[in-house]
Protein backbone atom coordinates (compact mmCIF):
# COMPACT_ATOMS: atom_id res chain seq x y z
CA UNK A 1 0.00 0.00 0.00
CA UNK A 2 1.27 3.45 -0.90
CA UNK A 3 0.81 6.33 1.50
CA UNK A 4 1.81 9.95 1.09
CA UNK A 5 2.99 12.04 4.03
CA UNK A 6 2.55 15.73 3.25
CA UNK A 7 4.74 18.00 5.38
CA UNK A 8 4.24 21.76 5.60
CA UNK A 9 5.62 24.58 7.70
CA UNK A 10 3.13 25.62 10.40
CA UNK A 11 0.93 28.62 9.75
CA UNK A 12 2.91 31.19 11.73
CA UNK A 13 6.31 30.08 10.41
CA UNK A 14 7.62 32.22 7.57
CA UNK A 15 8.13 30.18 4.41
CA UNK A 16 10.85 31.95 2.38
CA UNK A 17 10.59 29.44 -0.49
CA UNK A 18 6.85 30.04 -0.72
CA UNK A 19 7.47 33.80 -0.81
CA UNK A 20 10.02 33.42 -3.63
CA UNK A 21 7.59 31.29 -5.66
CA UNK A 22 4.79 33.80 -4.99
CA UNK A 23 6.92 36.64 -6.40
CA UNK A 24 7.87 34.57 -9.44
CA UNK A 25 4.22 33.70 -10.14
CA UNK A 26 3.20 37.35 -9.81
CA UNK A 27 6.01 38.33 -12.19
CA UNK A 28 4.71 35.78 -14.71
CA UNK A 29 1.36 37.55 -14.68
CA UNK A 30 -0.51 35.32 -12.21
CA UNK A 31 -1.63 38.36 -10.28
CA UNK A 32 -4.51 36.48 -8.67
CA UNK A 33 -2.00 34.46 -6.58
CA UNK A 34 -2.02 35.86 -3.05
CA UNK A 35 0.02 33.37 -1.09
CA UNK A 36 2.16 30.27 -1.70
CA UNK A 37 3.38 27.70 0.79
CA UNK A 38 5.96 25.12 -0.28
CA UNK A 39 5.95 21.74 1.45
CA UNK A 40 7.17 18.27 0.67
CA UNK A 41 5.51 14.99 -0.06
CA UNK A 42 7.09 11.74 1.04
CA UNK A 43 5.66 8.64 -0.64
CA UNK A 44 6.09 5.43 1.30
CA UNK A 45 5.34 1.90 0.22
CA UNK A 46 4.18 -0.14 3.19
CA UNK A 47 3.89 -3.91 3.15
CA UNK A 48 0.29 -4.26 4.34
CA UNK A 49 -3.26 -4.43 2.92
CA UNK A 50 -4.78 -2.82 5.98
CA UNK A 51 -5.48 0.84 5.29
CA UNK A 52 -5.77 1.86 8.93
CA UNK A 53 -2.57 0.10 9.86
CA UNK A 54 -0.76 1.81 6.97
CA UNK A 55 -1.94 5.23 8.12
CA UNK A 56 -1.03 4.50 11.73
CA UNK A 57 2.47 3.40 10.74
CA UNK A 58 2.97 6.45 8.52
CA UNK A 59 1.88 8.73 11.36
CA UNK A 60 4.42 7.07 13.64
CA UNK A 61 7.11 7.66 11.02
CA UNK A 62 6.09 11.30 10.66
CA UNK A 63 6.15 11.88 14.42
CA UNK A 64 9.53 10.27 14.77
CA UNK A 65 11.43 11.43 11.69
CA UNK A 66 9.57 12.84 8.70
CA UNK A 67 8.25 16.04 10.29
CA UNK A 68 9.64 18.32 12.98
CA UNK A 69 6.69 19.19 15.24
CA UNK A 70 8.36 22.42 16.35
CA UNK A 71 7.89 24.01 12.93
CA UNK A 72 5.96 21.57 10.74
CA UNK A 73 2.50 20.00 10.40
CA UNK A 74 1.76 16.89 8.39
CA UNK A 75 -1.12 14.86 7.05
CA UNK A 76 -1.22 11.31 5.75
CA UNK A 77 -3.21 9.95 2.81
CA UNK A 78 -3.44 6.55 1.18
CA UNK A 79 -2.77 6.98 -2.53
CA UNK A 80 -2.76 3.39 -3.87
Amino acid sequence: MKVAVNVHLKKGVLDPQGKAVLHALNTLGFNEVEDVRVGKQIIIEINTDNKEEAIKKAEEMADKLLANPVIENYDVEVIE
Partner: protein
Amino acid sequence: MKVGIVVFPGTNCDRDTKWAFEKLGANTKFIWHNETNLDNFDLIVLPGGFSYGDYLRSGAIARFSPIMNEVVNFANKGGYVLGICNGFQILLESHLLPGAMTRNESLHFISKFHHLKVVNNNNKFLSALNNGDIINIPIAHAEGNYKVDEDTLKSMYDNEQVLLKYCDENGEELNPNGSVDSIAGICNKNKNVFGLMPHPERAMSSIIGGEDGIKMLKGFFK
Protein backbone atom coordinates in the same frame (compact mmCIF):
# COMPACT_ATOMS: atom_id res chain seq x y z
CA MET B 1 41.38 18.00 28.22
CA LYS B 2 40.07 15.21 26.01
CA VAL B 3 37.80 16.27 23.16
CA GLY B 4 35.78 13.80 21.07
CA ILE B 5 34.80 15.02 17.61
CA VAL B 6 31.90 13.13 16.07
CA VAL B 7 32.13 12.53 12.32
CA PHE B 8 28.99 11.75 10.29
CA PRO B 9 28.92 11.02 6.55
CA GLY B 10 28.92 14.56 5.12
CA THR B 11 30.62 16.28 8.06
CA ASN B 12 33.30 18.59 6.67
CA CYS B 13 34.56 20.75 9.56
CA ASP B 14 35.95 17.84 11.59
CA ARG B 15 39.60 18.53 10.75
CA ASP B 16 39.34 22.28 11.34
CA THR B 17 37.72 21.54 14.69
CA LYS B 18 40.47 19.07 15.60
CA TRP B 19 43.13 21.64 14.64
CA ALA B 20 41.40 24.36 16.67
CA PHE B 21 41.14 22.32 19.85
CA GLU B 22 44.69 20.98 19.53
CA LYS B 23 45.94 24.53 19.11
CA LEU B 24 44.45 25.22 22.54
CA GLY B 25 46.19 22.18 23.99
CA ALA B 26 43.48 19.50 23.92
CA ASN B 27 43.88 15.84 23.02
CA THR B 28 41.36 15.05 20.32
CA LYS B 29 39.84 11.92 18.88
CA PHE B 30 37.50 11.43 15.94
CA ILE B 31 34.42 9.34 16.69
CA TRP B 32 32.75 7.72 13.68
CA HIS B 33 28.95 7.94 13.72
CA ASN B 34 28.58 4.14 13.83
CA GLU B 35 30.45 3.81 17.10
CA THR B 36 28.43 3.12 20.22
CA ASN B 37 30.90 3.95 22.94
CA LEU B 38 32.00 7.30 24.37
CA ASP B 39 34.85 6.79 26.80
CA ASN B 40 36.10 9.46 29.16
CA PHE B 41 35.78 12.68 27.21
CA ASP B 42 35.65 16.13 28.78
CA LEU B 43 33.83 17.54 25.77
CA ILE B 44 32.01 16.11 22.75
CA VAL B 45 31.87 18.31 19.66
CA LEU B 46 29.44 17.87 16.77
CA PRO B 47 31.21 19.79 14.00
CA GLY B 48 29.80 21.58 10.98
CA GLY B 49 29.10 20.21 7.52
CA PHE B 50 26.23 18.54 5.77
CA SER B 51 25.57 15.29 7.61
CA TYR B 52 23.61 12.91 5.36
CA GLY B 53 23.52 15.61 2.69
CA ASP B 54 21.07 17.67 4.77
CA TYR B 55 18.38 15.35 3.36
CA LEU B 56 14.87 15.69 4.80
CA ARG B 57 15.92 18.46 7.24
CA SER B 58 19.39 19.49 8.39
CA GLY B 59 20.44 17.13 11.16
CA ALA B 60 17.26 15.05 11.02
CA ILE B 61 18.91 11.82 9.92
CA ALA B 62 22.18 12.25 11.84
CA ARG B 63 20.06 12.36 14.97
CA PHE B 64 19.37 8.63 14.57
CA SER B 65 23.02 7.61 14.08
CA PRO B 66 24.12 4.99 16.61
CA ILE B 67 26.53 7.41 18.33
CA MET B 68 23.75 9.91 19.05
CA ASN B 69 22.20 7.65 21.72
CA GLU B 70 25.52 7.86 23.51
CA VAL B 71 25.77 11.62 23.01
CA VAL B 72 22.29 12.06 24.51
CA ASN B 73 23.23 9.84 27.49
CA PHE B 74 26.49 11.72 27.91
CA ALA B 75 24.63 15.07 27.89
CA ASN B 76 21.95 13.82 30.28
CA LYS B 77 24.67 12.79 32.72
CA GLY B 78 26.03 16.35 32.64
CA GLY B 79 28.79 15.91 30.03
CA TYR B 80 29.69 18.97 27.96
CA VAL B 81 28.50 18.93 24.35
CA LEU B 82 29.12 21.63 21.73
CA GLY B 83 27.34 21.71 18.36
CA ILE B 84 28.70 24.02 15.68
CA CYS B 85 26.53 24.86 12.66
CA ASN B 86 25.28 21.47 11.40
CA GLY B 87 26.17 20.17 14.87
CA PHE B 88 23.78 22.77 16.33
CA GLN B 89 21.09 21.59 13.92
CA ILE B 90 21.64 17.98 15.04
CA LEU B 91 21.32 19.01 18.72
CA LEU B 92 18.00 20.73 17.92
CA GLU B 93 16.71 17.66 16.09
CA SER B 94 17.83 15.50 19.04
CA HIS B 95 15.84 17.72 21.43
CA LEU B 96 18.97 18.37 23.47
CA LEU B 97 18.35 22.04 22.68
CA PRO B 98 14.98 23.80 22.20
CA GLY B 99 13.70 25.14 18.86
CA ALA B 100 14.29 24.35 15.19
CA MET B 101 16.08 25.69 12.11
CA THR B 102 14.47 26.83 8.87
CA ARG B 103 15.87 28.19 5.61
CA ASN B 104 17.52 31.60 5.75
CA GLU B 105 14.97 34.31 5.07
CA SER B 106 16.92 35.36 1.95
CA LEU B 107 17.09 31.73 0.71
CA HIS B 108 20.82 32.34 0.15
CA PHE B 109 23.70 30.37 1.56
CA ILE B 110 25.52 33.00 3.64
CA SER B 111 29.28 32.67 4.06
CA LYS B 112 31.09 35.61 5.66
CA PHE B 113 32.53 37.00 8.87
CA HIS B 114 29.76 38.29 11.14
CA HIS B 115 29.86 40.15 14.44
CA LEU B 116 28.28 38.55 17.48
CA LYS B 117 27.37 39.96 20.84
CA VAL B 118 27.86 37.94 24.02
CA VAL B 119 24.47 38.01 25.74
CA ASN B 120 25.29 35.72 28.62
CA ASN B 121 28.62 34.41 29.86
CA ASN B 122 27.25 32.63 32.92
CA ASN B 123 28.23 29.25 31.45
CA LYS B 124 31.39 27.29 30.78
CA PHE B 125 31.44 27.87 27.02
CA LEU B 126 31.55 31.69 27.10
CA SER B 127 33.23 32.02 30.50
CA ALA B 128 36.37 33.54 28.93
CA LEU B 129 34.31 36.43 27.50
CA ASN B 130 32.35 39.26 29.11
CA ASN B 131 28.69 40.10 28.61
CA GLY B 132 28.42 42.73 25.88
CA ASP B 133 31.69 41.69 24.19
CA ILE B 134 31.57 41.91 20.40
CA ILE B 135 33.44 39.22 18.51
CA ASN B 136 33.88 38.51 14.82
CA ILE B 137 33.37 34.90 13.70
CA PRO B 138 32.55 33.41 10.27
CA ILE B 139 29.09 32.08 9.52
CA ALA B 140 28.41 29.63 6.68
CA HIS B 141 24.91 28.23 6.41
CA ALA B 142 21.68 28.06 4.40
CA GLU B 143 19.50 26.93 7.31
CA GLY B 144 20.34 29.15 10.25
CA ASN B 145 16.97 30.81 10.67
CA TYR B 146 16.33 29.87 14.30
CA LYS B 147 12.71 29.42 15.35
CA VAL B 148 11.23 28.77 18.78
CA ASP B 149 7.78 29.41 20.28
CA GLU B 150 7.26 32.47 22.49
CA ASP B 151 6.81 30.64 25.79
CA THR B 152 9.98 28.63 25.32
CA LEU B 153 11.87 31.75 24.27
CA LYS B 154 10.78 33.53 27.42
CA SER B 155 11.91 30.65 29.61
CA MET B 156 15.23 30.61 27.73
CA TYR B 157 15.82 34.26 28.63
CA ASP B 158 14.79 33.58 32.24
CA ASN B 159 17.24 30.66 32.48
CA GLU B 160 20.11 32.54 30.79
CA GLN B 161 20.07 30.18 27.80
CA VAL B 162 20.34 32.83 25.07
CA LEU B 163 24.10 33.20 24.67
CA LEU B 164 24.94 34.94 21.40
CA LYS B 165 23.17 37.34 19.03
CA TYR B 166 24.11 38.57 15.56
CA CYS B 167 25.07 42.26 15.52
CA ASP B 168 27.10 44.85 13.62
CA GLU B 169 30.56 46.03 14.62
CA ASN B 170 29.04 48.50 17.11
CA GLY B 171 26.89 45.87 18.78
CA GLU B 172 23.61 46.97 17.19
CA GLU B 173 21.40 43.99 16.37
CA LEU B 174 21.91 42.91 12.74
CA ASN B 175 20.08 39.83 11.57
CA PRO B 176 21.62 37.92 8.62
CA ASN B 177 19.18 35.02 8.39
CA GLY B 178 15.83 35.84 10.03
CA SER B 179 16.46 34.13 13.38
CA VAL B 180 14.10 34.99 16.24
CA ASP B 181 15.64 37.92 18.16
CA SER B 182 18.80 37.56 15.99
CA ILE B 183 19.84 34.55 18.07
CA ALA B 184 23.11 32.90 17.00
CA GLY B 185 23.81 30.60 19.94
CA ILE B 186 22.02 29.00 22.88
CA CYS B 187 22.43 26.39 25.60
CA ASN B 188 20.18 23.97 27.47
CA LYS B 189 18.74 24.54 30.94
CA ASN B 190 21.57 22.69 32.66
CA LYS B 191 24.16 24.73 30.73
CA ASN B 192 26.14 21.73 29.54
CA VAL B 193 24.87 21.53 25.94
CA PHE B 194 25.76 24.43 23.62
CA GLY B 195 24.82 25.17 20.02
CA LEU B 196 25.80 27.99 17.71
CA MET B 197 25.66 28.62 13.96
CA PRO B 198 28.96 30.59 13.67
CA HIS B 199 32.25 28.70 13.27
CA PRO B 200 34.75 29.56 16.06
CA GLU B 201 37.14 26.93 14.64
CA ARG B 202 37.55 29.14 11.55
CA ALA B 203 38.70 32.13 13.59
CA MET B 204 41.72 30.72 15.37
CA SER B 205 44.59 32.60 13.70
CA SER B 206 45.13 36.17 12.52
CA ILE B 207 46.49 34.97 9.17
CA ILE B 208 43.09 33.49 8.32
CA GLY B 209 41.09 36.51 9.36
CA GLY B 210 40.85 36.56 13.13
CA GLU B 211 41.44 35.01 16.51
CA ASP B 212 38.10 35.58 18.20
CA GLY B 213 37.33 31.86 18.04
CA ILE B 214 40.11 31.29 20.57
CA LYS B 215 38.35 33.56 23.08
CA MET B 216 35.27 31.40 22.72
CA LEU B 217 36.66 27.89 22.87
CA LYS B 218 39.07 28.84 25.66
CA GLY B 219 36.12 28.79 28.07
CA PHE B 220 36.13 24.99 27.99
CA PHE B 221 39.73 24.94 29.23
CA LYS B 222 39.09 27.05 32.33
